[in-house]
């Protein structure tokens, strides 16, 4: 009996040592950009580019993390001179996200309550050519267009993973969890 138990414990230990350890979810805040969110793994900042028919060419600030074959990305574009066009810019971004992909769901996604509510959209798409499943949440507030995307890559194996939803639902535009890691936004030209 004790040999059986020992064998079982040994097997479990071997199994645990071969399964990759999943990174802990941490809170992040960018005071420069007025946003906080949660993500697993290490978040790195970079400059990117974006182009839309209405938005034109713009530099973007991107915060990115990859964990367990899920890519998490926060993209922020500044439109300080075009805030009155925020509704159109937001609509264009949502449209571009879903274009030529299979839309699985498209719902309201509101952050905050009452007069401080930020109204956005949450969309889930299957990427073309079986490249995975992406959940996107989109908001325009304080002159900035925010996109939160979590893409489950085919290597992950579970397109219905709850982690993308956990990521996009963690977004806040006021306040941050205590102990949140501060992210410095790179300077765009």
């Amino acid at each position, binding site marked *: 009996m004790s040999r059986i138990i020992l064998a079982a414990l040994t097997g479990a230990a071997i199994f645990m040592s071969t399964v990759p350890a999943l990174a802990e979810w941490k809170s992040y805040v960018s005071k420069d950009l007025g946003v906080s969110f949660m993500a697993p793994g290490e978040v790195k900042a970079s400059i990117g580019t974006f182009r839309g028919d209405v938005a034109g060419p713009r530099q973007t600030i991107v915060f990115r993390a990859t964990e367990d074959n899920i890519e998490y990305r926060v993209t922020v574009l500044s439109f300080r001179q075009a805030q009155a066009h925020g509704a159109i810019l937001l609509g*264009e971004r949502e449209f571009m996200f879903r274009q030529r992909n299979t839309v699985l769901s498209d719902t309201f996604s509101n952050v905050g309550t009452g007069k401080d509510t930020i*109204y956005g959209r949450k969309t889930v798409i299957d990427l073309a050519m079986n490249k995975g499943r992406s959940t996107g949440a989109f908001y325009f507030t304080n002159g900035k267009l925010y996109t939160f995307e979590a893409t489950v890559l085919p290597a992950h194996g579970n397109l219905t993973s709850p982690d993308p939803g956990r990521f996009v639902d963690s977004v806040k535009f006021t306040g941050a969890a205590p102990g949140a890691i501060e992210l410095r936004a790179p300077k765009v030209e």
Partner: protein
Amino acid sequence: MRFSGSVLLTAAVLAATTAPAQAAWRGYISHPLGFAFAAPGELKVEKGTYSGPVAGTHASLIYRFLDDNIEYKVMVVDVNAQANQSANLLGEAEFQFQNQKKLLVDTIDRFDRQYGRKLTIDLPNNGGRTTAAFYFVDGRIVSLQATVLPANGDYDSPEMGRFVDSITFSPEHAPDDATELPAPPK
């Protein structure tokens, strides 16, 4: 043969005269407000009130038509003082429209370099079905809403889509014979 033909002709004439005549669709345009649309029936202009937690309370301008127990409404809310919150104001209007109602359709709408949303809801207590479109243009929330009332009963009527799809924000797309809408109150 001649007798049966005349019976058929008489029956057809009777059917045509007893069926309610539907009004012709006409084009309307407002140059100050920057849009045009088409609707059937007689135009009525009303003032209303629009409110939301983000928007606050504002006067609204409503162009209303009624034909064959379908109500057509264009609502315009001037929120220019808060135009920098356009995305939130539009989102709030869309959200409030469908909040706590049975949502049947919710889709992005894109044309004339405008991005808005088209939604269809069933009204509570079998009050009918409404298809609406929402846009934010030049500091205003613009919403077209067509409601098939229970007295009509054809909740799949294409007239709802015909109305909301008739909107254009480019005057060059308006028909030449469009009627200028009464000027909005100052």
